């Protein structure tokens, strides 16, 4: 390799000059402190399966990657699948802003004065999210909803020091629950399951009351819950938690807040959620955006994980932005930090800020309505077609379970037949909730038009009749 566009010092002249200045004859001398028994020779290294065995051009890389990715299946419509992450629209403006090099290629703004635009954008994300959630303090982001929920549970244990019990409802996202379990496992936390009411689909307040006690550090509630149900008793659940001094933690789907009461209005102490629906794309697992917020109570704020950008003033009296409350963080407090998080999802937070700025006060409500109406249209059409969609009594937002127990077919069969038609159906939940049998969650967004929904319902009708 004689030169490379990404290594400017890789020319014969430059290498000679540098070697001369530092006073060595050959670059290999700079690696003499590596013990010989573990030092790789060029030949050994070059033989390893790394890339395609030799450097290639970007034209070849493009051809190879396009060739491989073309093996992904092209679907007729976006998948009718949610589970906390949804096929929402991504406006080109969002992608454009986060692709601008000044943001894209910046580091965490350790040098504030030269990073004011970046910091303002993150501050605006925090501030827009604060308005949406009606919570005062929002951090610059966590990895995703699951890890944000886990950090919220850990925070409740720090705030309520000495208490060891945390209550998680059985109708929360089971993937998020797994993350909470992994994070809390080393700390001897007792995780107690709160059952959901089989009739309403929501957490059963009376049952919950029996579980919350003076040992309880936090009570988690997801709304809409994993089944898409809106949790009509959310406020009462918060009161049950507060009566015993436990923190009330809510997990939210931000677009649903166009139609639902905010965590702040419901009395939440900590609000977490997923920013993916706000212009991020599905991204096959990430990057996503863990939302984390709390009330302006210094006992809570001091225990918050993650980075926070705050308003500041320069010595010349200009308005500016700075990283604040850093004494909570790992680079200062090391093992006493509130979390180990360093790199977060800042660029995704900016994407969400751009998207929320585009939607604004009325756009978000309108978007939430489109989601609600499309899902309820699908629900009505499926019901008309004789499918079992009324598993729960309470209303839902944009996702609901469909049971195929009555038809006596396995959901895997239906999934297979839908896929043959180029349609990706819902998320099978019979494995996680055996009591619900052959049941799948179907989700609908602004990306599923009436004709897409009609196609799904017609297909389901045909498949179940023949099945």
């Amino acid at each position, binding site marked *: 390799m004689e030169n490379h566009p990404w290594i400017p010092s890789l020319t014969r002249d430059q290498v000679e*000059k540098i070697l001369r200045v530092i006073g060595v004859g050959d670059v290999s001398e700079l690696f003499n402190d590596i013990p010989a028994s573990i030092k790789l020779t060029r030949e050994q290294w070059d033989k390893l399966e790394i890339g395609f065995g030799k450097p290639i051009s970007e034209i070849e890389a493009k051809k190879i990657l396009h060739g491989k990715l073309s093996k992904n299946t092209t679907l007729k419509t976006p998948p009718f699948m949610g589970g906390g992450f949804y096929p929402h629209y991504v406006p080109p403006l969002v992608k454009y802003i986060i692709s601008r090099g000044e943001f894209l290629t910046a580091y965490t703004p350790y040098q504030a004065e030269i990073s*004011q635009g970046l910091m303002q954008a993150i501050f605006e994300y925090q501030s827009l999210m604060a308005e949406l959630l009606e919570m005062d303090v929002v951090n610059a982001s966590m990895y995703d909803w699951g890890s944000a929920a886990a950090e919220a549970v850990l925070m409740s244990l720090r705030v309520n020091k000495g208490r060891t019990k945390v209550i998680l409802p059985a109708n929360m996202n089971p993937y998020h629950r797994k993350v909470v379990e992994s994070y809390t496992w080393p700390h001897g936390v007792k995780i107690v399951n709160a059952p959901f009411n089989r009739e309403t689909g929501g957490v059963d307040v009376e049952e919950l009351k029996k579980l919350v006690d003076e040992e309880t550090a936090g009570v988690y509630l997801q709304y809409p819950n994993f089944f898409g149900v809106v949790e009509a008793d959310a406020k009462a659940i918060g009161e049950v938690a507060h009566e015993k001094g436990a923190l009330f933690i809510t997990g939210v789907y931000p677009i649903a807040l166009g139609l639902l009461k905010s965590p702040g209005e419901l009395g939440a102490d900590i609000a977490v959620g997923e920013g993916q629906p706000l212009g991020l794309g599905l991204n096959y697992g990430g990057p996503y955006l863990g939302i984390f917020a709390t009330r302006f109570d210094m006992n809570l704020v001091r225990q918050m994980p993650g980075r926070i950008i705050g308003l500041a003033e320069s010595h010349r009296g200009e308005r500016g932005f700075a990283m604040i409350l850093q004494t909570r963080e790992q680079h200062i407090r090391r093992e006493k930090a509130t979390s180990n998080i360093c790199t977060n999802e800042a660029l995704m937070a900016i994407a969400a800020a751009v998207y929320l700025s585009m939607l604004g006060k009325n756009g978000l409500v309108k978007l939430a309505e489109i989601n609600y109406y499309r899902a309820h249209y699908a629900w009505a059409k499926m019901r008309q077609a004789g499918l079992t969609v009324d598993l729960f009594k309470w209303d839902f937002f944009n996702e609901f379970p469909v049971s195929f127990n009555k038809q006596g077919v396995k959901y895997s069969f239906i999934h297979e037949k839908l896929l043959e038609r180029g349609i990706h159906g819902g998320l099978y939940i019979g494995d996680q909730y055996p009591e619900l049998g052959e049941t799948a969650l179907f989700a609908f967004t602004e990306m599923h038009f009436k004709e897409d929904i009609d196609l799904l319902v017609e297909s389901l009708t045909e498949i179940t009749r023949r099945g």
Partner: protein
Amino acid sequence: MRTYRQANWSEPLIFELGSPGRLGITLPELEDEVKKVVGGVKIPESIKRSKPLSLPELSEVEVTRHFTNLTQMAYGVDNGPVPLGSCTMKFNPRIAWDLSFNSGVDQLHPLQDERTVQGLLEVMYELQKWLANIVGMDACTLHPAAGAHGELTGVLVIRKYHELKGQLDKKKEIVIPDSAHGTNPASAAMAGFKVIEVPSGSDGNVDFEALKSVVGESTAGLMITNPNTLGLFEERILEIADLLHKYDALLYYDGANLNGIMGYARPGDMGFDIAHINIHKTFSSPHGGGGPGSGPICVKNRLVDREKGIYLSDLLPGYIVVYDEEKGIYRLKGPGSHSIGLLKSFFANTIPLLWAYVYIAIMGPQGLRKVTEHCVLITNYFAKLMNGVRGYDIPYGKGRFRKHEVVLSAKPMADEVGVTAEDVAKGLLDAGFYAPTIYFPLIVKEALMTEFTETETPENIERYVERLKEISKIAYENPSKPKEWPLNTSVGRLDIVKANHPKYVAPTWRVYVKRLKGELK
């Protein structure tokens, strides 16, 4: 010296822009039939929103201009050198941006049937293999979302290892050098371990005698980066590994500094059992102003339980891509019964990983070795040019070559004329350079931890050195002047104390407004 002037748009906050009734996006009207069938919103009043949202209202024009102006008051590798130590701020090639951002992967749901994402899984399977080969390990999971997330994963694997061996009751400590990244002790604490710090010797290596005195039956593991944060290779790494393994403690490799040895040495060959990789450092995915990152974890095939046939790789969390030879398809293997579970909801930060795939493919093994050679050449070139410059010092490991980074100290200048590392940093900003990581590692006073990476041109290194010399000259002639810096950035030096003061602190616009209105409790 070129003159630098950063834009200053005095850009209002988004809340100070717009006008009632404006909308920044077109949304589809609901179909008449849909409206008719549904009838209306039937959400119970107890949970239905009753008041309007208090979000700003802007046209798309305003949103575009606002954020464009904000970008002009930011600084990334696309603008100039960002020599933040241990951050490996290398160039982020646009071909990788194109192939990761525009590949259609943004439309793939993580719970989608694996048969519909075979192309992507094949790519991720290859990447797992490439990364394992680069670090000399046997198995990798791409699951963790960042370096610190990978560390937490790795330490939880250590915990699980001891639990499965029935020795967790005595394995309570993780040993960490005093030069380590702050995330190491924080991760160990999150995994429920007690942190034992060991000092560095004057040669910059871990003090081996001190290490021997703290490692014992209660040691669960050691977290270490190599090259360390001083940019120095831990020369006694093989003895360290033997010492730890003698007590059945595991060796964890913090991969933040992998750029300094790639192609020359592999953690797996040094005796490490677990390693994390920073995709957003070594493999060029952009840092995005603080993330997304990606922090895969790779492990050796160390036996955990012979009878039950459990290996270290069985403890890994998340989803791992495997190839099902019988069916000829790639599968996503979820956490098994010995796994530590999930550390995030789904698979991995796929977009940065695709970026890394493109980077590694284009570089090939030969290119990656050149990357390391040139980041080391550039570091030593810089260190040599800085040698003997008044006011600066390069402590630890005198006479040793550095790898990926070098830590300068402005202590002489601070002691003699009161000009600190922070002042030096602000002086660099004024010349249009980003500053090094300052006040880290903690063992160096007035530290300027500098990592240029192979991205930097020798011309820029020379300009950087000229500026550091100029700063020194000004500091000794007129020591009050550096306190006024920066002058050429969009704002002047910020009052951090005030920003944190309980009577001022404003983490959001909401808090700021509440305080103005006297509504803050």
